[in-house]
Structures are given as structure tokens and as C-alpha cells.
């Protein structure tokens, strides 16, 4: 896939029925990048956890949120954005124990509660890619 970074964006409404679309895109990209089947399932879960949380919070300001997939040779980085700047620390350790735990366990790097203008980002490295 070359050294350059490809960017794929997906904008979804805050609705439960579209979370599976994020999983499909994730499958397709991970597949192309050469992740193994098990890892693809893991990344799908992590990405889905964030979407589910966003959908359950929703927004009064915006109809939709954006997922940016940054694809490089061996790293998939996923960033979540929304016009609604009140969406910031979307997970809290009490209620969302399971979700945070899962995301941290399945992804290589996770940045929650960022000081940047995105909601969160996380990334996964392709293993054994010679």
C-alpha cells in the first residue's frame, strides 16, 4: 500500500443501526492492510465500542460524527471527530468499565480525553508484516 498515508473518512448519524457500517469499513481496510483474521475482529470490537458510546450519548448540536481511518504501511490509526465540542471525555471509568477495558486491551495505542480537537484516537500495528 506504499509508504504514503491514505485517509478514509466515514460520517455516520448518531444512530445504532449504522454502527455496523463502521465495522464493515474496518473489516475492509484491515483486510487490505494484511491484518490477520483475529486482529480484524479485535479492531472491529474496539471501533464499535466507541461508536456505540457516541450513539448512546448523542448530540444536540450535530447530527453525525466522523471516523477518520489513517492507513499507512503497517499502522491503522482511527480518529473520531464531531462538530459538537462538548463530546470530549466520552467514557467514564465507572459506568464504562467494560468498554474502556476492552478498547485498551485490543488496541495498541489509545488516546482518550485528548487536548486536541478530536474526540479520541486509537491505533493498531500490523504484526509480522515483512
Amino acid at each position, binding site marked *: 500500500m506504499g509508504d504514503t498515508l491514505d485517509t478514509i473518512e466515514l460520517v455516520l448519524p448518531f444512530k*445504532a*443501526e449504522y*454502527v*455496523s457500517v463502521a*465495522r464493515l469499513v474496518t473489516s475492509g481496510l484491515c483486510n487490505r492492510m494484511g491484518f490477520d483474521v*483475529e486482529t480484524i*475482529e*479485535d479492531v*472491529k*470490537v474496539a471501533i*464499535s*465500542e466507541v*461508536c*456505540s458510546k457516541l*450513539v*448512546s450519548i448523542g448530540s444536540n448540536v450535530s447530527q453525525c460524527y466522523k471516523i477518520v481511518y489513517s492507513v499507512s504501511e503497517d499502522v491503522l490509526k482511527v480518529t473520531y471527530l464531531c462538530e459538537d465540542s462538548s463530546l470530549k471525555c466520552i467514557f467514564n471509568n465507572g459506568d*464504562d468499565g*467494560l*468498554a474502556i*477495558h*476492552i478498547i485498551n*486491551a*485490543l488496541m495498541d495505542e489509545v488516546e482518550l480525553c485528548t487536548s486536541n480537537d478530536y474526540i479520541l484516537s486509537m491505533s493498531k500495528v500490523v504484526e509480522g508484516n515483512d
Partner: protein
Amino acid sequence: MSDGLSFTKEKSDEYVKVSLVGEVDIYTSQDFKNMLYEVVDCEKMNLIIDCKQLNYIDSTGLGIFVGALKKVKQYDKKIVLTNLKDNIKKLFVITGLDKVFVIE
């Protein structure tokens, strides 16, 4: 394409078995929760959940399993999960829920 969730219910003298087909995510979770909690509250029996054809679950679904477990415990019954796919079993291990449920 696998999408959505369907379930079948089977009853014997000692347990109710619920078989899941498809995905438990935030979209299918409300139906799943209603179904599972109703089975638990009506039958008041040991519950076997067959996950052979469960392709996907995330914390939304795990939370529902935990909720069902709390309910069955009120009736002194247990939940047994069978035939979990590897990617799903992994989530139980990660969250420590493999020690809370009987997984076969």
C-alpha cells in the same frame, strides 16, 4: 452478510437453552435484553446460552449477560455459556467475566 440477531429457545426439565444467531451490538441489544430478561424472569431456571452462531458481541452485549446473571442469581440459578468463538471468548477473558460465568 451477517447482520442483526435472531434467537431460538429450547426448554427441558432442568434448563432453558437460548441459541443466538448473528450479532449483539448496540442496534440489536434492546431486543436481546428484552428477550433474555424475559426468559430469566419467566422461567426461573438454569440458563444455557449457545453462542455457536454468535459472530459478534461488544460491551453492550456483555453488560446484558451480566444483568441476566444478577437476575438468575436471585433465583439461585446459573448461566452457562457454550460454544463461544475465540474472538468472543477473548472478550470474556479480557474483562474478567470468564470468572463470573460458567463457560463451556
